[in-house]
């Protein structure tokens, strides 16, 4: 019996059209990401790292095989159903933060809460709590353009966890940050994983992310391999 938020990819095949032919990304990929995992996925550009996140997050679909989260089989669900499911179960963290530039930090964090039945007051309360967790209570009224990259990413993470999803999908969350800010973000993600039990799947090029991740997998040519050196570095 799978846990509620075990992520399972079963015999997944995915390719993209290129002219008349198709470039295969994955062929017969099977993997499980158990609830509470913090998985770092590394690999060369174009190896399909973002594609995996998109498949798990229900914003892209497989050619063959099946993607399921807990008991919910995403493969074959309608766009509307997937959208609703995402709102409740998935938080995205993007490399370029993707904050709404004309909304304040607090309003950005409130955005996913508008998809919940929470009252306006309850939403304010929750926004305050979460900004507090990410250490940005002082910046609630600031626009993204008035924040540093690290601060913007913390708002991005706050937005991702606002509606309390069980799973966080992070695509190179530190890719655009300096070392110090990157470490702060990694620490924050670790906190969310260890203290709040979020399952985190993180695509990264950042070697030091294996410091916070529970597992690191290397993706190459559509296959996951575990590299000796990485295991060495992290132990």
């Amino acid at each position, binding site marked *: 019996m799978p846990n509620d938020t075990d992520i399972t990819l079963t015999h997944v095949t995915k390719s993209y059209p290129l002219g008349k032919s198709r470039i295969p990304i994955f062929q017969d990929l099977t993997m499980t990401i158990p609830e509470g995992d913090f998985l770092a996925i590394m690999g060369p550009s174009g190896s399909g790292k973002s594609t995996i996140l998109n498949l798990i997050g229900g914003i892209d679909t497989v050619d063959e095989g099946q993607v399921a989260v807990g008991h919910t089989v995403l493969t074959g669900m309608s766009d509307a159903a997937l*959208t609703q499911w995402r709102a409740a179960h998935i938080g995205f963290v993007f490399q370029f933060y993707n904050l709404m530039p004309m909304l304040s930090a607090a309003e950005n964090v409130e955005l996913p809460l508008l998809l919940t039945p929470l009252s306006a007051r309850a939403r304010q309360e929750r926004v305050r709590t979460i900004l507090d967790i990410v250490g940005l209570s002082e910046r609630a009224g600031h626009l993204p353009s008035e924040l540093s990259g690290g601060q913007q990413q913390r708002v991005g993470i706050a937005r991702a966890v606002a509606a309390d999803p069980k799973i966080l999908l992070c695509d190179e969350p530190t890719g655009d940050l300096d070392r110090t800010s990157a470490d702060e973000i990694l620490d924050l993600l670790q906190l969310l994983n260890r203290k709040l039990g979020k399952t985190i799947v993180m695509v990264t090029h950042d070697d030091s992310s294996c410091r916070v991740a529970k597992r690191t997998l290397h993706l190459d040519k559509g296959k996951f391999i575990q590299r000796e050196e990485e295991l060495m570095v992290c132990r």
Partner: protein
Amino acid sequence: MPGFFKQCSALSMTNLRSLHRRKLISLSMVLSVTLVVVVLLGFLSMANGFRKTLAATGAADVVLVTSQGSFSETTSRLTTEQLHLLQEAPGIARDAKGRPMVSPELLVPVDARRQSDGQAAPLSLRGVGAEALELRPALAISEGRMFTPGTGEIIVGARLAARYQSMQIGDSITFGQSKWTVVGHFTAGGSVFDSEMLADIGQVRALFNRQGQVQSLRVRLGNPADFAAFQTYVEGLDMGLKAATEKDYYSAQSQDLSRIILFIGWPLAVVMAIGAAVGAMTTMYSSVSDRLVEIATQRSIGFSRSAAFVSTLIEALALTVMGCAIGVLIAWLGLDGWSASTRSGASTQLSFELALSVPIIVNAALLALCVGLIGGGLPAFRATRVPLRSAMTGRST
């Protein structure tokens, strides 16, 4: 589903707040809608003002008799014999002295000089019988007095007096060889008579060398219901005469001209609206591509396709409504009550005011709405098809 409205309003607010990034192109959409609205309002209020003027002119119990086949009074001719027979017609009201209330009339085109630039403009001088005022209940002397029959006195519409030279009381005014003394100004309740001058028909005939000429006969009926009997009598004379109530006569005239105005106005406005809709579409497509990452991000977070659609459409409609409001304001301040004039059938000037009205504004607003819906529809659909993976790869601005 309250959730749906919450989604739509949240995304709409986010869109509208980002408008400043697309200032110029959004402004161009607003202004093109404004232009469409102003043009349509201009034409419609012109037609409306014209219709109002002519509608104010007609009375149901005053009958105009002309010779058949003539489109207007000016080309009509009544003989003395016809006039005598017409006075015998049934249904004619009589005054206190028992005289039939009729007025033989003759319109003469004359030139008067405008105060503004001294240029000559054609006006109508109407020779009328002594009963003329009884036949025009809307006509009231606003200053001075009525002309005395048999003299070279003249009264002019107050509206004309304000605009043309030598029309103040006591002035003498010359038309060709004839010389007249202005003794009164009148108002005629916004009717065509407002832009006429009245004098004794005998004098007009004498001074313009139109001995014995009468173009039309105005007749007051005791009761509007008598019209049928009167008309039967006139047709029974078999002299090719035509009787129409003033109301019918002028509304027929007004219909012709307002139809012409509308036939020009609507197609022009619609063609411009199509242009504006194409422009709006360009604006909205660029809005969607400007917001690509934002839309993809919102959709990834869990906002629905329909919310993305509605919020884009609302942005289009907001710009349209803004354009429409500016257009109505411009028309209100700039056009409403503006005097226009036209050469009417009588080849003399008839002046009237552009009149806005609620139905006209509703018409223009509906046209603007079409611009917004057509211009915003396809781009809004595009917004629902934004590939979500662009949230992963794209930088938001």
